[in-house]
């Protein structure tokens, strides 16, 4: 700064102006430097946040009765163990998008997360999941009363895979622990069926006829006979449709991983299923996720709703439901050979292979999947339990004794006899399922015949699989 010139020449206007300009210049340059420093400090703080200390674990969770119930008990866990547990809860579609972004970038931020078996197959193959057997076998990490044999064996089998495309489910490493199981039933409005003298359907043809007959105006309200998910997503394929598809003995892939969703049996059942939705379902079926379908059934707009059996907890809750006490539970109808088959879904908790807090994460995982905790989540609609002791506990029996025990009877039969994973184990389930769902929408919209749509989808899926 030219201070001498100011004192020597006096405070003339030009000198003052120059002095002010210099001062401003210096202030602004320092301000810029300070802002840059602050930015760097903030950036550093944010980055260092991504390296949690051992006393903190991060959970990425899907919005689901299990997560909503376990969240209630997390403060208790934090108090007891001193471990801080931070969670991020997202709805299903957004959840999986966030999860794939985190895992594919090999981020270690989230230690534990939820997944279903399609994701288990994808992520295990990619090397993103931590195998869990070693933790179960370690007495220093797993309490003695944490009984691994108490889980339903079918559900543990769903969580093991030997990483071979097209086979190997139930073999190899254990990649996750089941926390919630669902199989598929047809929820039906007993009052409407009785009022219009319609017999509860036992075959898919009867479902079609009942759906058509019940799509009518009842006391000023439009009722639709049959509801099912419809969005362009693999999750549309998975519940009722795949149940019906398996009942016709149709398959997604053959033994050499060629897509066979256009087999004659597949075309026959797909045609009947979509016809049921078109003639006995709501308008705009392709816009239905399970959230919307469940809401429609809750508010009395569907006479039948083919989806996860544990939604009974909401349907039977009079504070949420307009149909509480009027709901019946039907096993999936039998196919041409008289056999019943159901698809199933298992929600599990898995550990990030890149986690830096694996021991702490495992301790939480063991706590969350213990008998005691799974039992405590039952009153908060975390149904169906994945441990035999919890399912048979008198408190669970009392909590799930809906429709004079009809719910438990169907759930028990499904779990022990009819419900299996109907997808071929591979890393292509979600991609193939999305394309398959697009084909169902084309059939529904009439832009293609059933045969054309399934043939075209099968060709595209073959291309995805690299066949």
């Amino acid at each position: 700064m030219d201070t001498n010139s100011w004192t020597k020449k006096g405070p003339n206007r030009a000198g003052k102006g120059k002095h002010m300009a210099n001062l401003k210049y210096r202030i602004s340059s320092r301000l810029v430097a300070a802002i840059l420093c602050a930015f760097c400090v903030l950036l550093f703080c944010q980055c260092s946040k991504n390296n949690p200390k051992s006393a903190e674990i991060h959970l990425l969770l899907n919005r689901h009765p299990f997560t909503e119930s376990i969240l209630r008990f997390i403060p208790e866990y934090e108090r007891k163990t001193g471990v801080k547990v931070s969670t991020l809860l997202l709805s299903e579609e957004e959840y999986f998008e966030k999860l794939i972004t985190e895992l594919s970038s090999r981020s270690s931020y989230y230690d534990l997360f939820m997944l279903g078996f399609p994701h288990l197959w994808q992520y295990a193959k990619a090397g993103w999941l931590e195998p869990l057997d070693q933790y179960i076998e370690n007495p220093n990490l797993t309490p003695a009363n944490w009984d691994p044999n108490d889980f339903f064996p079918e559900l543990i089998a769903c969580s093991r895979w030997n990483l071979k495309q097209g086979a190997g489910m139930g073999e190899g490493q254990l990649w996750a622990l089941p926390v919630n199981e669902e199989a598929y039933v047809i929820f039906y409005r007993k009052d409407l069926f009785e009022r219009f003298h319609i017999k509860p359907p036992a075959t898919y043809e009867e479902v079609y006829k009942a759906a058509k007959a019940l799509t009518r105006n009842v006391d000023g309200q439009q009722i639709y006979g049959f509801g099912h998910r419809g969005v362009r997503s693999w999750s549309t394929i998975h519940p009722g449709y795949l149940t019906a598809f398996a009942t016709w003995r149709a398959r997604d892939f053959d033994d050499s991983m060629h897509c066979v969703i256009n087999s004659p049996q597949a075309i026959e059942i797909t045609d009947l299923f979509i016809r049921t939705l078109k003639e006995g379902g709501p308008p705009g079926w392709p816009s239905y996720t399970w959230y919307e379908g469940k809401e429609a059934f809750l508010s009395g707009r569907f006479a039948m709703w083919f989806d996860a059996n544990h939604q009974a907890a909401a349907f039977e809750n009079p504070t949420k439901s307009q149909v509480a006490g009027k709901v019946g539970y039907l096993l999936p109808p039998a196919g041409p050979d008289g056999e019943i088959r159901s698809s199933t879904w298992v929600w599990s908790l898995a550990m990030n292979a890149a986690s830096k807090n694996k021991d702490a994460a495992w301790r939480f995982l063991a706590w969350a999947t213990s008998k005691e905790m799974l039992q405590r989540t039952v009153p908060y609609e975390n149904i169906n339990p994945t441990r035999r002791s919890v399912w048979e506990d008198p408190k669970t029996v009392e909590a799930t004794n809906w429709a004079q025990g009809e719910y438990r009877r169907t759930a028990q039969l499904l779990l022990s006899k009819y419900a299996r994973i109907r997808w071929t184990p591979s890393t292509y389930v979600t991609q193939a399922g999305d394309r398959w769902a697009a084909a169902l929408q084309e059939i529904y919209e009439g832009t293609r015949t059933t045969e054309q749509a399934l043939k075209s989808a099968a060709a595209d899926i073959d291309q995805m699989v690299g066949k």
Partner: protein
Amino acid sequence: MTGYALRTQSPNPPHRSLPYLLTLPALLALIGILYPFVLGVYYTFTNYILTEPGNIRFVGLTNYIEIFKTLDFWKAFSLTFVFAGSVVIIELALGLGVALLLKDAFPGVRILRSLLIIPMMIPPIVSALMWKVILLPTDQGVLNHILSFVRFPPIAWLGDSATALLSLIIIDVWIYSPFAILIFLAGLQSLPKEPYEAAKVDGASGWFMFRKLTLPLLTPCIVLVTLFRLIDSLKVFDIIYATTKGGPAGATVTLHIQSYFEAIRWFRMGRGMVYLFVLWFLCFIFSKALSRLWTKVLMR
């Protein structure tokens, strides 16, 4: 050059580094923008599958050739243009019309102007979810419920391929028309009064003045609105993601939505990036052309 200019003005040595310091954020931002872009373009030439990160191979133009051969690409390509073209035309017309109505002072005009901005203040994803409830297919939907009073059967607005695109256009117009209205309103209020007074003296009709005075004088605003809205609507994602996710039966799959399916849902990052690169190229061409036109109009 800037450094030289500053050095001659200021004799103090510490100031020498200042120009570099000042350009550093811009340089960092440039790297931050260019690095993902270049990486994305590189991925278009690879077989990158998200779940197989260790198996990235260079495949040349295979992704481009495969995608350009599919019907899905051309459907998404044309749908992107139909959507963008429709919303730009409607928003221009509606924006200009409403701005003309609101340019003069009358009781309540200020409240009306404030109310009109509301859709723009709501995040588009929230607006889209709100519209999803309004357009629910059964009589649970607000619109269908209202229509039921005049004995209209429920329409599956977002669930029917005949009405899904139209519904998305309505949502986009609802959200972004206020932007056009604001620009046109500002443009109309800054127009010179003299030509209008002269035209009035000559006995010109309102329509004549609109055609021969207002429209030509507003051309910079029209180009500006077209530029912003065209680029934005070519890239549309949030509204479709929140409402139809590309359904029903692919009736609302634009390039951006198809890239989301390819890259995020089907893990085929290489193919997903091809869709995005084509989209970027389209936006680049249009923004260049329109910004040139804008400069030309301003120079006139």
